[in-house]
């Protein structure tokens, strides 16, 4: 038989264990109170009996058996909790308020015993009340018994323990009920979390946990779960987008290549051409495809990397100088005025190869989009914040403010640049490199419209202090 779900839940099980622990502790405490009180009551009774006994034996010693007898008669007639019995040498009762000695099988000396007295309670019912007493053989051979009825004390202890047990039972019931309530509530909250996770597991990333802003752990967990799902959904979307984009960007050149090869094959079979030109073209296109593919892979890896691969601390000024030198002839070839302003001593911590690639991409873009006769400026400097900034400013057509954040995404090529070669991965790679290094990419206006050039664009790669 399976227990109802609530009994199998963690909060309820915790409640149960806690209650069991509580019950154990309460029982131990009760037993302790009971036995301590009992020992205390017995000790008190014993002391009282001893006092009576001492007084009586003193009377006997000093004034004889008759005086003792008289004293006993006096004491029993006054009443009180004490029991007395004086017996002769044969053990026959003589004076006292009990009919016979409750101590059976007296062996001599001072013999203490606990026993029960038969009597009637206030309602006339037979009650066996607890008592204790001592029997002693006097010097004349008579036997003296002194005892005390401790029934009231025992009754009190009994009532006390009943009250304590009752209280414990009540606490237990309340605990059980509270546990059920709490576990039902927690179960509800966890159930809602579970439902969201289950949905996500089966592929539906849309559901979110309702966050109540109570600030408790469950609420916090719900918030974190939501944030995680947001991130997951975002990266899924970007993967989907990248997948679509790759499909789009690779499909058309692949289709073109296939068609060209097919035609070439037909023509070569007919002996009209030798097909070499088609093969050469196909090779060129394959190279382009590989470049696109490698760039996509690099970006994906950079985005997936948790830390800078193979980091080193180096002077970025050298890197910038190298890149300026590398691109200088290409700029001159295109009749561009390419200049650089590089501050000395720009120590940064990063991956040299990726930063070189990023800087190369920035210069590359500027050279590609600036029309002949324009100007491109490479700057590397410290910002007042201490960050290291590489910026490339050109006098090309620029990018509209609304499109600026978009060009950092993968495969985004603005419509008017579709005619240019490239897969639209250059700036995304710069962005990925910047993010990996804890930096950012800033896109701003260039120098504005001058002599028919511009407004231009300024793209900056900003890296944190080494």
């Amino acid at each position: 038989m399976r227990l109802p779900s609530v009994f199998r839940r963690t909060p309820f099980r915790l409640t149960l264990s806690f209650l069991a622990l509580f019950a154990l502790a309460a029982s131990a405490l009760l037993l302790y109170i009971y036995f301590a009180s009992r020992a205390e009551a017995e000790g008190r009774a014993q002391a009282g009996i001893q006092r009576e006994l001492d007084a009586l034996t003193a009377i006997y010693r000093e004034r004889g058996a008759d005086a003792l007898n008289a004293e006993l008669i006096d004491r029993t007639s006054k009443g009180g909790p004490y029991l007395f019995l004086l017996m002769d040498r044969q053990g026959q009762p003589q004076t006292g308020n009990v009919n016979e000695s409750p101590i059976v099988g007296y062996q001599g000396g001072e013999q203490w015993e606990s026993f029960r007295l038969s009597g009637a309670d206030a309602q006339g019912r037979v009650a066996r009340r607890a008592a204790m007493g001592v029997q002693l053989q006097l010097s004349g051979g008579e036997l003296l018994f002194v005892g005390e009825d401790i029934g009231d004390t025992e009754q009190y202890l009994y009532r006390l323990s009943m009250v304590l047990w009752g209280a414990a039972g009540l606490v237990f019931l309340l605990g059980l009920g509270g546990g059920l309530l709490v576990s039902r509530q927690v179960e509800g909250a966890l159930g809602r979390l579970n439902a969201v996770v289950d949905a996500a597991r089966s592929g539906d990333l849309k559901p979110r946990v309702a966050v109540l802003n109570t600030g408790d752990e469950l609420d916090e967990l719900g918030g974190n779960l939501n944030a995680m799902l947001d991130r997951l959904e975002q990266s899924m979307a970007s993967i989907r987008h990248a997948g679509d984009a790759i499909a789009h960007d690779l499909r058309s050149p692949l289709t073109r290549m296939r068609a060209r090869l097919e035609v070439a094959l037909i023509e070569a079979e007919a002996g009209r051409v030798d097909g070499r030109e088609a093969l050469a073209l196909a090779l060129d296109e394959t190279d382009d495809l590989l470049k696109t593919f490698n760039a996509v892979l690099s970006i994906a890896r950079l985005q997936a990397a948790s830390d800078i691969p193979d980091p080193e601390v180096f002077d970025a000024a050298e890197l910038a100088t190298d890149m300026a030198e590398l691109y200088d002839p290409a700029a001159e070839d295109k009749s561009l005025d390419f200049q650089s302003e590089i501050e000395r001593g720009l120590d940064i911590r990063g991956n040299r190869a990726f930063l070189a690639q990023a800087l190369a991409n920035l210069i590359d873009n500027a050279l590609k989009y600036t029309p002949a006769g324009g100007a491109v400026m490479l700057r590397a400097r410290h910002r007042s914040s201490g960050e290291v900034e590489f910026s490339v400013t050109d006098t090309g057509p620029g990018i509209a403010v609304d499109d600026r954040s978009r060009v950092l995404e993968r495969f985004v090529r603005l419509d008017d640049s579709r005619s240019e070669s490239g897969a639209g991965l250059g700036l995304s790679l710069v962005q990925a490199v910047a993010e990996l290094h804890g930096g950012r990419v800033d896109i701003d206006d260039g120098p504005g419209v001058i002599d028919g050039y511009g407004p231009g664009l300024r793209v900056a790669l900003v890296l944190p202090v080494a």
Partner: protein
Amino acid sequence: MRILIVEDDKEASAVMARGLSEAGHDCLTAPDGAYGLEAANQGGFDVLVVDRMMPRLDGVGMVETLRRQGDQTPVLFLSALGEVEDRVTGLKAGADDYLVKPYAFPELIARIEALARRRETGSVQTVLKVGDLEMNLISREVSRAGQDIDLQPREFQLLEFLMRNAGQSVTRTMLLEKVWEYHFDPQTNVIDVHISRLRSKIDKGFDRPMLRTERGAGYRLEP
């Protein structure tokens, strides 16, 4: 030249062997690092082309063992792992060069030939000569047919690399790696422009151009 190809992808290895044979080289293939080690131990290879990820013994393990045994045959690593740290691990293991898959075939041939060549010219040279082109590495003077040529420092390095690999193809990536010491893919024709400047200095005014462009491969300095 004798080349050992250690690659677990049979098709890739067969295509490579065929291409290298076409280029006039003698090839032997091994399907994994363990066989590769055995074959390499027989000796007589000029260059080893080793894939990184293979069953039994991987490329790194194989080359490390080889180097421990004192075998200094040049090794070209082939790998689908292109990240910088992968390259560094490969070179640390004792490989001499590293080529990331997928690669263009001319790039492979150019690199293999450059490795073998490097081995041949192990002795320290102070003067490089290719045809009537002469380069003095000490005085840093260059002349062709006795006519002095004035080169920028980078042009000098570029020409030095081309002369050391004279008669063989060198690719743009190789030039960027060996002359500029950067490992990345330039989007535009930056290297081409440097080459054409160098060409204008060494070939201008001469009937026979030495610095040739090879379609799909790169450049070749012909004596």
